[in-house]
């Protein structure tokens, strides 16, 4: 909403108040003033000029040499506008004038002819092109004949004005009108509002003799007022009216249309003007559209209507889309003489639905869909009739043609001053409350210590006690509310075990060298299920904004890999990222998908890079595996953690494993398939993804200290040659099972394949530690346990013992 302070001053006296101060007060008491627009834009020295003579420039086809009376003198100005002509009153920027953007006007010579200034278009005076009447959109602006040469053109055009731009919240539709704004400002300044005085001569003819009205859909249209004005002369509106419309952001058209728009802006009541002759039937019938009914609206679009959409008809065919836009077939045009002014109450839900369905929003629909003031419907029609009479030379027929079943009684709200104070934590006196409500012109009586409030119908947002509490609080000032803390039962607060463990996981991964990433949940259909630990129907958006973000992910890895590529492309060759976030497993259309939190990581490039000490190490499977093990260890879940070679689409078949805990699949780890790496412009890249919810829900034993061994341990090394196929994990299992309870630790410390080892074989070495927490082990005991291990390795794993 654009509020011209010049216009506003008609209803409340704001003279002498600095616009910045006014804006601040309005903002602080409830309506945010987004910006303060000085329409004059620093323009100086523009005056009215009278074009006495206008001839073609001998040296330039498109230029005209004009002799212009600018009051104190007649001077020569060269003008290139196509619509310039002798006899016009125009806007002249005199030499020395400053135009928007700081452009200075100087005397100049154009193709040998002197030019003492510039004849201006409205755009050159910083009026937006879309607000300039079509007639002048492509050329200079022509002022009315009454303009006096030498007069200040800025004031004449109403550009010496400050406009406040309101950012209105949806509840404050009352401020979508100048009068509504006046009530608000009046309350702030403790002033009354001066309403327009409506009076005009009425014809002896009666409106109802010329127009019949029937409403067939009273639920959607409980009130309809039609006024008939004849002998209207359609033409340009007076400058003051055009100026106000432009200040409000509305483009002037002709006086009839301008009047409806003016009253819309003034009262907040949308009006429509029909050409009675074009209606043709002398009848207006409001009904729901028929399926497939066609209507060409004023914007020249042919629209196909649906049966629940409300239309105005001439009883035969539709002539307007109720509350949204008029029809082209009954538009007021230059030759119109008899006008029907429509002022109606259309149900908010109906207008909102129609406007949404047709993708058509207008100044009218935005007001109707929030609910207009029932008590201004008739008044607005009268105001328009008055202006038609005053400005368009119309003769207003007596009375209105009306159907009215609209409830116009104000809403009654009862509440006690204590409720208000308890809610706010304040002590506002009853007198003060009454005074605030009086300033807001909310009719209130104090009866038996209770406030009995009749909320004015212009304030559709006042319905319940809390609404009144807000009115009192905001006018009293939020600064005056004290600061206290809630007095509630004291609760410990804190993280749930899940949340606490999730923080542990993050802290561990970061400590291990990974940066936390945050990627989008929406992805493309192709990527949605890539690397998913578990797949289910994908959850698809009804209307995605792009194919890339059309479905919800079932794995975190595709986006993490994209992040790796993004970094590598920017010369960050070594990337280590992790993310915790949900994946979405669909459960059919009518149910919410199952959301499962996962943790995933990606590493590529170098893991250790300490050049001057010649320490460089590329990432590999075991770096990431170590991180997974460490993470599980930090959760007390290392025991039971196993890795099992696996084949996963998009992963390196020889370097990928399923991660299990006590046999249950909890995730995957491995290298991205080389061809996939290539596609993503990545070198060797390793990833892991785990079902975090599953991991964090595994029950762990309570942490209890195990005594530090008091007795020395004994270690033995084993070197073996086994088939290349035999996994280290399998060997460890054999050793662990055979070693018995004295075997405390197994460490693989050497692995070799190649020279000196038979083809198809590998050499592996373990270091075994034996301990008893109760006593020092004897040599015999260790030998016995170790022999068991050696035997088992030979017989169960086919190992050949070396050295």
């Amino acid at each position, binding site marked *: 909403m654009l509020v011209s302070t010049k216009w506003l001053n008609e209803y409340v006296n704001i003279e002498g108040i600095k616009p910045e101060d006014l804006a601040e007060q309005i903002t602080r008491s409830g309506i945010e003033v987004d910006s303060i627009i000085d329409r004059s834009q620093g323009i100086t020295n523009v005056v009215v000029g009278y074009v006495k003579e206008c001839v073609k420039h001998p040296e330039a086809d498109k230029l005209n040499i004009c002799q212009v009376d600018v009051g104190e003198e007649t001077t020569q100005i060269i003008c290139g506008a196509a619509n310039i002509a002798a006899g016009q009153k125009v806007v002249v920027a005199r030499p020395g004038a400053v135009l928007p953007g700081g452009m200075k006007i100087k005397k100049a010579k154009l193709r040998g002819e002197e030019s003492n200034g510039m004849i201006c278009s409205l755009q050159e005076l910083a009026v937006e092109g879309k607000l300039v009447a079509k007639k002048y959109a492509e050329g200079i602006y022509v002022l009315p004949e009454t303009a006096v040469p030498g007069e200040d053109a800025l004031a004449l055009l109403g550009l010496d004005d400050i406009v406040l731009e309101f950012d209105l919240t949806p509840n404050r539709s009352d401020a979508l009108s100048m009068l509504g704004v006046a009530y608000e400002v009046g309350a702030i300044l403790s002033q009354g509002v001066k309403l327009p005085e409506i009076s005009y001569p009425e014809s002896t003819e009666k409106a109802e003799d010329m127009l019949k009205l029937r409403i067939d859909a009273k639920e959607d249209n409980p009130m309809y007022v039609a006024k008939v004005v004849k002998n209207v002369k359609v033409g340009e509106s007076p400058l003051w009216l055009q100026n106000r419309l432009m200040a409000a952001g509305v483009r002037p058209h002709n006086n009839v249309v301008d009047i409806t728009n003016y009253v819309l802006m003034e009262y907040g009541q949308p009006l429509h003007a029909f050409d009675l002759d074009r209606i043709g039937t002398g009848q207006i019938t409001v009904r729901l559209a028929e399926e497939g009914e066609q209507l060409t609206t004023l914007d020249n679009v042919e629209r196909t209507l649906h049966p629940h959409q409300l239309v105005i008809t001439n009883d035969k065919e539709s002539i307007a889309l109720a509350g949204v836009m008029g029809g082209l077939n009954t538009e007021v045009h230059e030759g119109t003489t008899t006008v029907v002014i429509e002022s109606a109450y259309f149900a908010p839900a109906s207008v909102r639905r129609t406007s949404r369905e047709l993708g058509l929003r207008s100044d009218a629909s935005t007001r109707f869909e929030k609910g207009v003031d029932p008590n201004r419907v008739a008044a607005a029609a009268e105001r328009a009739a008055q202006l038609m009479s005053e400005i368009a030379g119309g003769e207003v027929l007596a009375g209105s043609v009306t159907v009215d079943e609209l409830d116009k009684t104000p809403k009654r709200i009862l509440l006690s001053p204590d409720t208000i104070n308890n809610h706010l934590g304040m002590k506002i006196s009853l007198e003060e409350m009454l005074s605030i409500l009086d300033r807001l012109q909310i009719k209130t009586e104090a009866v038996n210590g209770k406030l009995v409030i009749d909320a004015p119908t212009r304030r559709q947002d006042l319905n319940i006690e809390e609404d009144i509490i807000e009115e009192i609080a905001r006018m009293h000032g939020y600064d005056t509310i004290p600061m206290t803390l809630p007095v509630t039962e004291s609760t410990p607060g804190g993280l749930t075990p899940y949340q606490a463990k999730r923080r542990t996981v*993050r802290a561990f991964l970061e400590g291990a060298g990974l940066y936390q990433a945050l990627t989008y949940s929406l992805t493309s259909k192709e990527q949605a299920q890539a690397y998913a630990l578990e797949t289910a129907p994908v959850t698809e958006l*009804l209307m995605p904004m792009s194919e890339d973000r059309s479905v919800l992910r079932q794995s975190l890895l595709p986006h993490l890999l994209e992040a790796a590529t*993004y970094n590598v492309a920017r010369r960050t060759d070594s990337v280590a990222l992790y993310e915790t976030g949900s994946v979405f497993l669909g459960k059919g259309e009518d149910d919410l998908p199952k959301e499962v939190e996962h943790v995933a990581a990606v590493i590529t490039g170098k893991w250790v890079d300490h050049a001057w000490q010649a320490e460089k190490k590329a990432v590999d499977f075991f770096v990431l595996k170590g991180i997974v093990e460490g993470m599980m260890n930090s959760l007390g879940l290392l025991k039971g953690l196993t890795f099992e070679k696996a084949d996963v689409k998009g992963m390196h078949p020889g370097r990928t494993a399923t991660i299990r805990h006590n046999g249950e699949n909890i995730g995957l780890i491995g290298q991205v398939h080389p061809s996939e790496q290539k596609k993503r412009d990545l070198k060797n890249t390793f990833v892991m993804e785990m079902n975090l919810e599953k991991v964090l829900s595994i029950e762990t034993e309570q942490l209890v200290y195990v005594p530090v061994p008091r007795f020395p341990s004994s270690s033995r090394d084993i070197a073996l040659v086994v088939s290349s196929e035999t996994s280290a994990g399998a060997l460890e299992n054999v050793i662990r099972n055979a070693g018995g309870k004295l075997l405390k630790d197994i460490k693989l410390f050497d692995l070799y394949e190649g020279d000196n080892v038979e083809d198809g074989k590998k050499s592996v070495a373990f270091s075994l530690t034996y301990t008893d927490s109760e006593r020092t082990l004897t040599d015999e005991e260790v030998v016995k346990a170790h022999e068991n291990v050696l035997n088992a390795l030979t017989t169960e794993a086919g190992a050949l013992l070396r050295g």
Partner: protein
Amino acid sequence: MEQQLKELKERALEQIKEAGTLKELNEVRVAYLGKKGPITDLLKGMGKLPADERPKMGALVNVIRETVTEVLEERLVKLEEQAINEQLEKETIDVTLPGRPARTGNHHPITRVVEEIEDFFISMGFEIAEGPEVEKDYYNFEALNLPKGHPARDMQDSFYISEDILLRTHTSPVQARTMEAKGGEPIKIICPGKVYRRDNDDATHSHQFTQIEGLVIGEDIRMSDLKGTLSLFAKKMFGDEREIRLRPSFFPFTEPSVEMDISCFNCGGDGCNVCKKTGWIEILGAGMVHPNVLKMAGYDPTVVSGFAFGMGPERIAMLKYGVEDIRHFYTNDVRFVSQFHRTEA
């Protein structure tokens, strides 16, 4: 004999002096004081002396032994010191060479802000509630006093999955779900999480972003409690000197509704680019829980009241760290994320 002893002493002291290394010194010690050395021999030979000479000679030998031992010890200390000095010389490094980097990562800046907010409210006795990102229209809108067709739904363009299911547009549905689950009990929760809106991604909009909301419900919760709580929060997040101001606003789920500004932490309120010359920065929306919201969740608005607030960690991070483009939070550029490493405590 006496002369012999004197010479022996002189010789020994001379050799101790000449010993240049610990090894040489040890050889001298073995040579004179060892079991096969001359002093031991002398003491062993004492028995052969006449009885009246034994005490005198014994004393003399002992003196010599003590003197030699003493001088030897002194020399030992000196040589050890010398050896250590040599070692230190050899081990000297260029301390200006670069250190071996300790590999660490860090929180994403959004998590950093979220956890900071969480921790503040935890200290105030709040719990953290979480809920689904894909929501029923009921919890996202209807239970929050936004029935179908409500004009305020325009404020939040949504990604719908079906007519009744959508990506949540705020974390308020978690509040609705918590209220429903608590069945009339008092509540003090913080709800952080991802939310989604139909916006084209640009410098200030992101189709996915983060929200953190709070809700307190109980008997006699007043608007002054909201103001006091948020004031403490502002000081904790943005510094002790921060002041707050509330401006009237509108949210369908609160009445009265406010927006909260904090005095600009950059200029202290004098006006600068951060606060767009106003001295104030808008930081969050809040209000008293709308009675319809309470009613729908089974609370009696004549008995209990509550306040709620919500803010965007992206906005807070942008303000706090001077980040100019919201998209930085979602590109995961290591050069960006790694800047949020150090503590600010």
